[in-house]
């Protein structure tokens, strides 16, 4: 029944209401096979609700979704057979050993004993869990728990894996290793649907969507998003200003006309400035306040810049709409 050229996920005009509250409002996106799809958004923006809808846990209030070519509404059971899912708290049984956790999830998916044996061997090899095989899950560190959880999610060889904040609370080394593993698996044709808060992780995804209060407000490759006209308004450009005392420098910089927005990044300031603002002038104004600028150089917007900019615009649009609604009655 699976056609050769189907997408991993299609979501068309998804709507989910809880009473009067609309948690997911007309959300559409498409995930191609083999993509690492980053699904981003602040807490409470509807990320988890969308995952629950795509995995058939929550009925759709409107719209249509297919996962691996299967209609989520009509056949949620078959959807769940064909996906893997790893939640942010790794969902392991801490009083069971690594082996027992793997065995349990393998049986859940109805693997035959031979296939289960073979898959456990493969996963233990892939994830390097060998030395911990007989250990209780409770005794593993965060990074190892996460590898075990990922192992449990891919025992039944799903072609699509949902990872809900897979790197929350684990150390940078384990984080790097997980991403290396994801790239590796993705090269073998496995699709990943990843939610994350980390912008550096978003930059690694091959496709990103940003959801804000139930609506998708950005969708594309990270490079596409960086070039959006909303993010790069005509007549402006972005610079990175390296200077000592950045907090003080930021306060001064924000008073300079022609500087549209500025924020601190480590030991420097990222600013969006008008073309008409002369860089020497900017440098001089800061110097007048005793700040010696080390370097000013042009900068491409980061994904964080993109999402912040789009969020502001979205908020402004909503406020405007609300005002227009009120105006006639007043």
């Amino acid at each position, binding site marked *: 029944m699976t056609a050769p050229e189907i997408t991993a996920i299609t979501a068309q005009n998804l709507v989910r209401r809880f009473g009067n509250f609309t948690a997911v409002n007309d959300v559409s996106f498409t995930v191609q096979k083999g993509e690492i799809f980053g699904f981003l958004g602040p807490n409470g923006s509807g990320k988890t609700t969308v995952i629950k809808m795509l995995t058939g846990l929550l009925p759709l209030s409107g719209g249509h979704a297919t996962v691996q070519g299967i209609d989520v509404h009509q056949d949620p059971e078959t959807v*769940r057979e064909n996906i893997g899912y790893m939640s942010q*708290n790794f*969902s*392991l049984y801490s009083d*069971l050993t690594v082996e027992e956790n793997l065995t349990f999830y393998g049986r859940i998916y109805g693997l035959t004993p031979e296939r289960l044996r073979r898959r456990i061997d493969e996963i233990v090899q892939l994830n390097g869990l060998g030395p911990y095989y007989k250990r209780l899950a409770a005794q593993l560190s965060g990074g190892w728990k996460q590898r075990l959880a990922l192992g449990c999610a891919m025992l039944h060889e799903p072609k699509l894996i*949902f990872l809900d904040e897979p790197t929350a609370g684990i150390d940078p080394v384990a984080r790097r290793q997980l991403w290396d593993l994801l790239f590796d698996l993705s090269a073998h044709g496995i699709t990943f649907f990843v939610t994350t808060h980390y912008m550096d992780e978003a930059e690694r995804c091959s496709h990103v969507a940003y959801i804000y209060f139930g609506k998708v407000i950005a969708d594309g490759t990270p490079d596409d998003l960086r070039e959006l006209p909303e993010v790069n308004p005509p007549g402006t450009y972005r610079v990175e200003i390296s200077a000592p005392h950045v907090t003080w420098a930021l306060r001064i910089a924000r008073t300079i006309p022609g500087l549209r927005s500025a924020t601190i990044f480590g030991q420097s300031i990222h600013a969006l400035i008008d073309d008409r603002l002369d860089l020497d002038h900017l440098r001089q104004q800061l110097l007048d306040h005793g700040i010696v600028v080390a370097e000013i150089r042009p900068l491409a917007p980061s994904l964080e810049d993109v999402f912040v900019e789009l969020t502001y615009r979205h908020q402004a649009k909503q406020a405007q709409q609300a005002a227009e609604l009120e105006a006639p009655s007043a």
Partner: protein
Amino acid sequence: MLNPFRGFRAVFYKETLHVRRDFATLFFSLIIHIRQINTVVYNADGRRESRELLDRLKNSDTFHIYRYVNNDHDLNDAIIAGKCRVGVKIPVDYSDKLLHGMSAQVLVLIDGSDSSVAGQAINVTTAIGLDESLRRVLASSGVNFAVEMRPKILFNPDSRSPNFFLPGLTAVLLLNVTTFLTAFSIVREKERGTLEQLFVTPVRPMGLLLGKLLPYLGIGFFELSMILCAMRFLFRVPIHGSVLLLAFLSLPYLFVSLSLGILISSKAVSQAHAMQLAFLTILPSIFFSGYIFPRETMPKFFYVISYFVPATYFINITRGIILRGAGWVHLWSDALALFLMGSFLLVIAARRFHDKVITA
């Protein structure tokens, strides 16, 4: 392809691992969880036998002897003032009665305002009383109960035969353990987030619930047979009816308590919360089931309530079979009532489980 019990065997496998790994903690954390209840003691007897009994109370770790008093008034006062939750009065003739092979009585006053403490105090004092009796019975190989613990709510004396008490205890303990264990096993998965994980696998809700219930049904049966053995061979309570019938009729009762456990787990957000809710169900089983107060002596209101308490029917079954040698003809209506209750509870529980847990 659509097997509604999908995943049952996997869950059963896992659940048995949990039980095996955590056997001791599972039981003792449930059964003895409240410790060091402040207790006031009026030891009117004061001789060696009475002091031994007090030592046993202290060693149970449930009671902390806060104060000794010398009259009834001070005993009551300490409880009314809220300084102590439990009062123990050992009458002046305690040692005498024991030494003459008669049944001695100990008064245990329990503050019912904290339900969980009250339930715990009843269970532990009862257990100690039985244990103490057992030692003396064995020592003197007499048939009478040597010590009878008499748990009761303040100022409402009531006298019963000791044989009447054990079959009732079976019902209360069985409910206690199975409801707790079921509720806990599900709420624990809620807390850990593993339940959420299970729902995105092909496990069907019925497979999940059944896989969880069966191991605890097994434990319930094991417990029932332990209690029956102890009652028959240690306490020498004769069983006049058929043990097989009793085992069979305990099925609908276990069904009720397991369903109750699921219902509780669908509401509770944490293990502590589940514990509170479980006590809410256990106290009526103690007070309104005829276990402590004969139902006939209850005010009309509580008498009507007692019809809605599952333990009422099971106590009728255990007492019927054990004491009166009743058979299927006499007890089928009780079994039917339990079965209907269990079905009703399971439907509500399954619906709540679906609405509040899966799609929440």
